[in-house]
């Protein structure tokens, strides 16, 4: 019987040893503190660069529309969303209260940032994300960080069922953060009555040196 007991003990020891324990130094999950911690994390960085994939799914379209590119962010309030697919598209917030938008090889259009944010909600969304705001300005959305799953954490912004979204309005936003680092890994925006745009972020680098002309207007 001894060998059996020994074997059981070894197995138990091995099994329990395989179970990952709390990561050393990682804070415990506290939903209420997530927005604050995320904001602190983002605001500590002077610059951020990353690569992204934008996937647009529209109701009634069988194939999603996939675009790729890079994002440059520099505090305070400067953002460049530069598309490689399709080449030439550009969203630029040079930090002077304006927004420059260019489609393909067309002429860049400069507008006031407030007006641009009103008509292009993803601008406000991305800028808010890099400045550490998980909750965009849209009213009627409830913020709910969900417990981490693996190295990811999802912060959901959902609409009050009593106040449904208008046609084409934002139904929900899900921000995916790394855990416990709270780096943004992606954002998914669902629109009322069909439609979704998903941004996936890769190769995020903080406080790197940005190209000199990163925020120069074209």
């Amino acid at each position, binding site marked *: 019987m001894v060998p059996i007991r020994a074997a059981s003990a070894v197995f138990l020891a091995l099994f329990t040893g395989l179970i990952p324990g709390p990561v050393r130094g990682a804070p415990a999950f506290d939903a209420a503190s997530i927005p604050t911690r995320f904001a602190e994390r983002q605001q500590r960085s002077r610059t951020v660069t990353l690569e992204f994939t*934008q996937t*647009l799914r*529209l*109701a*009634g*379209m*069988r*194939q999603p*529309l*996939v*675009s790729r*590119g890079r994002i440059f962010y520099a505090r305070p309030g400067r953002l460049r*969303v530069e*598309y490689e*697919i*399709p080449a*030439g*598209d*550009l*969203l630029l917030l040079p930090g002077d209260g304006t927004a420059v*938008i*260019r*489609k*393909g090889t*067309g002429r860049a259009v400069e507008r006031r940032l407030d007006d641009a944010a*009103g*008509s*292009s*909600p*993803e601008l406000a969304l991305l800028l808010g994300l890099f400045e550490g705001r998980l909750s965009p*300005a*849209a*009213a*009627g959305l409830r913020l709910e960080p969900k417990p981490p799953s693996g190295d990811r954490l999802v912060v959901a912004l959902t609409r009050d069922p*009593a*106040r*449904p979204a*208008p*046609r*084409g*309005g934002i139904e929900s936003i899900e921000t995916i953060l790394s855990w416990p680092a709270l780096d943004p890994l992606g954002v998914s925006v669902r629109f009322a009555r069909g439609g979704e*745009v998903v941004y996936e972020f890769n190769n995020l680098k903080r406080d790197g040196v940005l190209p000199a002309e990163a925020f120069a207007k074209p």
Partner: protein
Amino acid sequence: MSAGGPGKRPFGFSPAAWVAAALVAAGAWSALTIRFQTELTPLFPPGLAAVRAIRALEASADENAVLLVPVPGSAVSPELAEEVATRLRLLPDVAEAEPCLMPPGVLAKLAAARVAALPEAAFAEVTAVLANPAEMAARLERTRGDMLGALDPGLLALRRIDPLQLLPSSQNGSAAPASPVLVWVRARGDLRSFEACQEFVRHVRAAAAQFAPGRYLLTARPVFAAEISAQMQRDMIIMVGVAVGLVAAVFWIYYRTLAALGAILWVQALSVLAALTVGRLCFGELNVIGVSFAAVLLGVGIDYSILVFHHFAMGERMDSPHWPVLRRAVRLSALTTAGAFGVLALAQFPMLRQLAVLVAAGLPAAAWFSTTLLADHFERRPPPPRRRLTGAAHHVADFIDRFRRVIAVTGALVIVTAAVVMPAFARTGDLFDPDLQHFRPLQLEAYRGQAALEEHYARMSADAPAARALGSAAVRRNLAHWTPGRAEAVRTSLRDAGFEDEWAAPTASVLAELDVAAADPAGLAELADGGIWRHLSEELGTTALADLQRLSGVALVGILILCYAAHRSLKLVLLNAATLVAAFALLFGGLALTETPLTLVSVLCLPLLIGLTIDYSLHVLLVLEHCAGNLREATERLGVPISLAALTAMAGFGAPMLSGLPLLSNFGFVMDLGTLAAVLAALFFLPAWHVLGRAPKPPAPEETGPQATPRRYPIFHSGPAYALGAWTAQRVPRGFLRALAHLWARLFAAGNPPATEVLLRNLSLVCHPPPDKKAATRTYLSFAESLADYYWLGGRTLAQAQELIGDRRGIEILRSVHEGGRGALLLTAHLSLFELGGVALKGILDCSIVALSLPESSPALSEWRAAFRRRWGVETLEVGGDDQFTFLEISRLLAAGSFVAALVDRPHGTMRSKVRLPYGEALFSSGILMIAAARRCPVVPVTVIRRDDGRYDVEAHEPFFVVRRESNEATLQHYSQVLADVFAPIIQRHPEQWYQFAPLLPSSSPSSPA
């Protein structure tokens, strides 16, 4: 039938009371079941292109939805629109609330209009794309490309509705304004009733004001219905209250009684119910203009009641000789005014057609009830007389009489000035302003919202001006090249490119609109042209003016005919017409002075004023004629009621000036101005003209006989009528002609009570018991037969004509007179076909016959009749009076041995002698007897009488010579009586053949049995 007449009264109620009871029931049913419609476009001619465009646009919109449009200049963001929509969604009676660029349904139509308005080459490109699947696939690939990369919600929205990039803004890449700042709100229930509209609009307005105070304007059909109905309710309460108050005050000032006003208003209510019933049966609904029929009826119809009331207030009753005249005047006036309005039924505007039918039905009802029910009521409960009014009327009459020349000249100058100035004034465009702004009460939120929405559309069509410049003609040309049925190919292309059918739906709906427009391009062409309201104003203005010109002419001709039927005098009709022109001149002068234009609605005042002026002037003229030009009496009878009627009409029409709706205010002002003009023209100019047109000194009482008033001729007594009669008689058998004549006689008898009255008075001189209306009808029938034979003779040979002669009695007397070589006077009476005497003698006596004749109603008729007599060898000598030249001419004829024929049983000229007839006295003209005395020629009384077999007996009676007696008067008196004694027994045997339609007695001479 008159309520006061001897008719049957079932269950003790007059027929009018029974009709009133039935009308109350029918009116109540109509009021409960008639539909009220507040929409604007059903008022306009549906055939106009702009109207069709607007109706098409309206049909696209959801009838149960309202639209929130940002106040121009206010900052409304899509977020705010979302917030407001979210808030509205929480309301229990809201089914949907969405921010939007345009209301659903309108988008496809506007998009189709923009495609249709493309330049020819661009439009050809669109049609080529739709016919080419490869090109469609390429465009769809570009659309997919547009959705990659930087997200542009505006562009996405545009591609979502136009994936093939057919719209101009899609082609040049400039996205339409992408901010969905309108909020479209659909009700859960059906917004049919005014109450439902008001309730829903109140809820939406409150919710919008809570979240976006001062930022949004509400518009769309339910808002219009809610606001206009609320405004109309407020206006009606104010207007009716003010109008009734003013009318009551004026009535009390005049008559110091309000009890009578109750009876008068009851009659007005009956006329309104009559019109409402007709409206319910004919149309089933009432529009906002049609509703004003009640004001028109009250304004005009109350005149009739006031005239009737005034008759009784003067202490007169239904047995007064003035009553038949007044009753006839009221009814004729109602028919004339109703006729003027009835002509509007031929207008192209549905709003006018409805109003015309309602008023044309209501006015005769008002006149009939006023002269039956109301008269019956006042007969039983006579109002107290008001002497003070009489004094005031006399003052006015004296004023007019004293200054008649000044007033008459002023009236003439007004007409001349208007004739000179009006054309220039009309050309300035200040007189008529068809701008639809007059239909837009800007204090209503619905209208301001509509204007803001039009601005919004204009901004969305920022690239449209170039297309607009093409004009609707280019749009029509494009649509002519359109190939319908492309929608399925579009769906297939989209499916192949990975798009579901929902992406094809907007394009398919645009193509469907183009398919429809290709068959009927008018509506879309106007829409594409961009100036739909401007076009509407222009088209309505042109149509209204065309209607006005066309219908005013028709109405005027109709009115003049009716006036002629009333007066039987061209001079009086001209006076009517002059009054009308003067009234219009005064009105237009007033409009020019106050710088008030006529609008599409106040143009309605013109036919109304035609009716009103003719109404007043007809009454004034009939009474002036009845009173033999006695201005005091006429003013006493009419001045008071007409001025009161005008004041009440002005109170009724003036009340709309308090309305919040500009079109009603304008209508009220123009109508008041017009009423004032009508009264001035009818009560001042007309009497002055009439008095001037008469002898300046009233005739002495003895002379106040039938000839003291201008001679009036019946309508058949005219040249054209005789020519028509003769022409007809040559083409139809005698029997048929007589049957026609019988029909005419019966109609004439029924339609001419005053003429019948005169005839019966004359017949009563020879008949006992006094003849009744049947006797009058028999006379009319007999006269018609004689007239038919007269016409028949005109187309026959002498032999055929002489077949009509039965017995010739006393021919030997004539022969012996003739053989004596002397001429003779053949004196006869208006008995049977007296003209047949010439035919009877032709071929029997070889003598010259000359008929003396008074001038006819026209030279043409005189000539026609002279030619008629000439066929049988009878010459005509027209005599105009008792002048020496006439005497000499007749003497010369007698000296030459001619037979001179004349009628003596009707007074004319100044030589008249009173004769005794079996039951009264009459005046014979006796001047001719003086010639017989001077020439010592025989006088032969001659009579013609129709037998039962239709032939005529001609009889020459015992001749006599005129021997002078103690004086000329005594001589004439004596021999006139001799003649009367010869004729009277024959007339008594054949009273129906004595055609005396003119008065034979002085009005002051009572008839007494001889």
